[in-house]
């Protein structure tokens, strides 16, 4: 936090505390109305528990809703429990529908039921519908605050209609047009309406080509459409093409972040979680990591068995062991590199399944180039580390060749396995660094000992 923000925040905190202790609810409402909700939420988080509750109680529902929207889910659910369902239902009703739905889905079923009962029938029905969509579907992230015109409205009437109904809308940049069955038939911007001849009909100035997304589709599909077309909002329709909600670009920012976090966590061999670091309990952190560590442990034992198979060679030439950690380390690093690059390219849809052979051919050549460099370095190193019981040239060649092939295999497997995983409809992000390292360990050791047997003649 920079100095300027800190000073502003402290000032805000003092102001709020003063108003709270005076119990001046009108003054509070006036003050809060002038601040940005995200700043208010930050100040709110610094208040004592008691002040928090009285602030929320004193503020009108709309302003309280602005603050609650910005809080973490954990703080939100805690707050709802404290202030009771009556006050909570007013606040939740005033929140943007997508945020409100997220919150409702985090509460106990009983609490949700209670809150919905205290709302109007229509509003409760709408929330029930929103709650029925999967968390990570387009329906799960959409909001319902949009303005829909009908094709036969005159432009001047439409403008008046927007004036009357648009106050709650998330965006007026895109205004949708629906027919008598609420089916989406067109889109136009507020600008289109403002600059149009007032006597024209909406159907005459609307764009009929509307890009939309199905309510049950994955949120990633919505994100792809945003990236491709550069919209500020995207309409969501049900199976009958009925307009049911909109997704705005700022919702997608969170989707993009979430998906990236999930990938990064998987790539590092941990179960992914959508909670923040600080709000995740220690035991949960442990659990998310220990699962993969245990699986990799078992897989890693394979390298022990492989070496056991070559026990005689090892006993004859103990110096062979000197280069094992380096060899498998290098192969693993090369594999981590290519798998990370490939997983990211697949996620961004820069590489497709049909490119599989092209990728493997490319990685073979890159792996060869990388292997030549590390192989040479390996030969040099073997000359520098004195070792008894084996001809130095033989040792050098053994190290060089096995380094070359291990790095090559690491590169190819690192890029190829995520693509194969995608073929099999598995998540490519799982086949990253840690798993590749384990696979390369086993293959590298087999190559190493086979080469040693051939060259050194064990």
């Amino acid at each position, binding site marked *: 936090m920079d100095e300027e923000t800190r000073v502003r925040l402290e000032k805000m905190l003092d102001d709020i505390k003063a108003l709270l202790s005076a119990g001046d609810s009108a003054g509070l409402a006036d003050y809060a109305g*002038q601040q940005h*909700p995200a700043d208010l939420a930050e100040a709110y988080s610094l208040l004592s528990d008691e002040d928090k509750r009285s602030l929320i109680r004193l503020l009108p529902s709309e302003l309280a809703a602005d603050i609650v929207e910005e809080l973490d889910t954990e703080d939100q659910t805690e707050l709802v429990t404290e202030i009771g369902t009556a006050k909570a239902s007013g606040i939740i009703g005033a929140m943007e529908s997508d945020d409100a739905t997220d919150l409702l889905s985090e509460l106990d079923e009983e609490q949700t039921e209670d809150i919905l009962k205290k709302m109007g029938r229509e509003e409760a029905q709408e929330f029930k519908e929103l709650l029925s969509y999967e968390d990570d579907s387009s329906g799960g992230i959409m909001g319902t605050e949009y303005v829909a015109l009908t094709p036969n409205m005159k432009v001047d009437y439409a403008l008046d209609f*927007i004036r009357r109904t*648009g*106050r709650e809308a998330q*965006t*007026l940049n895109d205004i949708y047009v629906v027919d008598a069955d609420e089916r989406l038939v067109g889109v136009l911007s*507020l*600008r289109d309406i*403002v600059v149009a001849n007032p006597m024209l009909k909406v159907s005459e100035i609307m764009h009929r080509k509307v*890009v939309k997304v199905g309510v049950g589709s994955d949120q990633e599909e919505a*994100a792809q459409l*945003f*990236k491709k077309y550069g919209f500020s909002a995207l309409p969501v329709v049900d199976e009958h*093409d009925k307009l049911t909600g909109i997704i*705005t*670009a*700022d919702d997608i*920012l969170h989707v*993009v*972040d979430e998906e990236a976090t999930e990938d*990064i966590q998987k*790539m*590092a061999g941990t179960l992914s979680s959508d909670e923040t*670091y*600080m709000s995740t309990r220690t035991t949960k952190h*442990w659990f998310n*990591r*220990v699962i993969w*560590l245990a699986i990799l*442990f078992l897989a*890693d034992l394979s390298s*022990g068995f492989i*070496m*056991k198979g070559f*026990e005689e060679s090892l006993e004859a030439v103990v110096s062979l*062991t*000197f280069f*094992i*950690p*380096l060899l*498998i380390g*290098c192969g*693993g*690093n090369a594999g*981590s590199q290519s*798998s*990370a690059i*490939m997983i*990211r390219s697949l996620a*961004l849809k820069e590489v497709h399944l049909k490119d599989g052979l*092209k990728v493997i051919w490319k990685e073979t050549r*890159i792996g060869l*180039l990388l292997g030549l*460099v*590390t192989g040479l*370095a390996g030969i040099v190193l073997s000359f520098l*580390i004195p070792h008894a019981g084996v001809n130095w040239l033989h040792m050098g060649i053994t190290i060089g060749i096995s380094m070359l092939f291990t790095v090559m295999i690491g590169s190819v497997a690192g890029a190829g396995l995520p693509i194969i995983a995608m073929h099999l409809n598995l998540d490519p992000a799982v086949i990253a*660094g*840690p798993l590749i390292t384990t696979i390369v360990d086993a293959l590298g050791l087999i190559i190493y000992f086979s080469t040693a047997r051939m060259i050194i003649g064990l």
Partner: protein
Amino acid sequence: MPLEQRNLPRNGDALSLVRNFLDNPSYRAYKELASGALPADIAEALKSLSEEECRRLLTLLPSELTADIFQELDIPLQVELFGVLGIEKTADIVSEMDSDDAADLLLELNKDEAESILSNMEEDAEAVKDLLKYEEDSSGGIMASEYVALNENWDVTRAFDELRVICPDSDKAYYVYVVDDERHLKGVLSLRDLVMANTTDKIADIMSSNVMSVKVDSDQEEAAYIFKKYGFLSLPVVDDENRLTGIISSNDIIHVLEDETTEDIHKMSATLPLEDTYLASGIVELWSKRVVWLLALFITGAFTSSIMRSNEAILGQFVTLIFFVPMLIDEGGNAGSQASAIIIRALALREFDLSDYLKVIWKETKVSLMLGISIGLMGFAAASIMPSEQLLWSQSGTIVGLSTLLVVLFGSVIGSLLPLAAHLVGFDPAVLSGPVVTTIVDSAGLLIYFYIAKSVLGI
């Protein structure tokens, strides 16, 4: 076409509409193309056309639509088409493009080419030229100059009159910004506020003066952070004197987030960030981005060889010990990769700040200890069961179990500490991750392992 059959635009449709138009470039075919396919769809269809077809299409279509199509193409393809279309036609197109996209293209061309395009542009050359001077990954580098600014002294009627004049050029006006006579940023209005206001209201009275902005030379990540925190659709960019110079829209930020993540993922896997996509990067380029770190890690990794060498005697006597080395150092490295990835991501998303450092370190220490004990127990079990002629089951179990515990503990703690420390001194934490941590853990792990083995075996 009946309404229910009008589905999402498919690229096949766009391509056939394009081909129709090329076969018979009538007004009717143009209308069908323009109303049946969005610019982004036509852009994608373009990739299936020959160079000559592209040239014909882009010359035949009105330059406004051409510009919309052009800015949806990948930059390398834009550069290629520039070669096909020539300077004059390209200048026409560029002057119709959104200023931020136009600037991105000009940056990719060489100086002379960019100069001659700018001098051939009929309008907006100045605006685009201004954008060229900002760093590519600064807020100035991603902003556009198509903002809508109203003077605080106007009334709503005047504002609407002005809007009718400015608006058609501006795709990105989600909010209207309010400035004074010297262009200082004073406030913000949504079009919604404006539509709902009385015609005689003064702009200064209906605007919100609590307006968030970023400085033109701030990092684009700063802008991304504000977007995420406040959920805006656009954000004004100001110069040092708080004068409005451009806007960033939220869909620009989608690309910023993706680019930053890609950069982090590449760094986290010991690769210098790629500039192009994987398929567009040449073999030598990919090689050079990877070989640097691979060699650096080789050199640090070479310590393992000398550690092994100095324990030659004990290895010769108890060959069994080597069997557990790969598992041991891998698990230490894995625990380190996990911790570093989690911390690096949390730092990137600003989930905690400096004041939380001690809490994070304490949490990581506890998690690491728990992980060490869990995997250590597995190590003990595995090594006790594995038959060995040289070691008692209790000896190998103790050696492997205890060292696994310590190595996993060490790896996990180092994995979380390194990125935290890097962040503290202003380094990029993403560089200190998986492979770097793994290499450190390799050496340290071997030292721990042999030390414990010697103690247990009494050598």
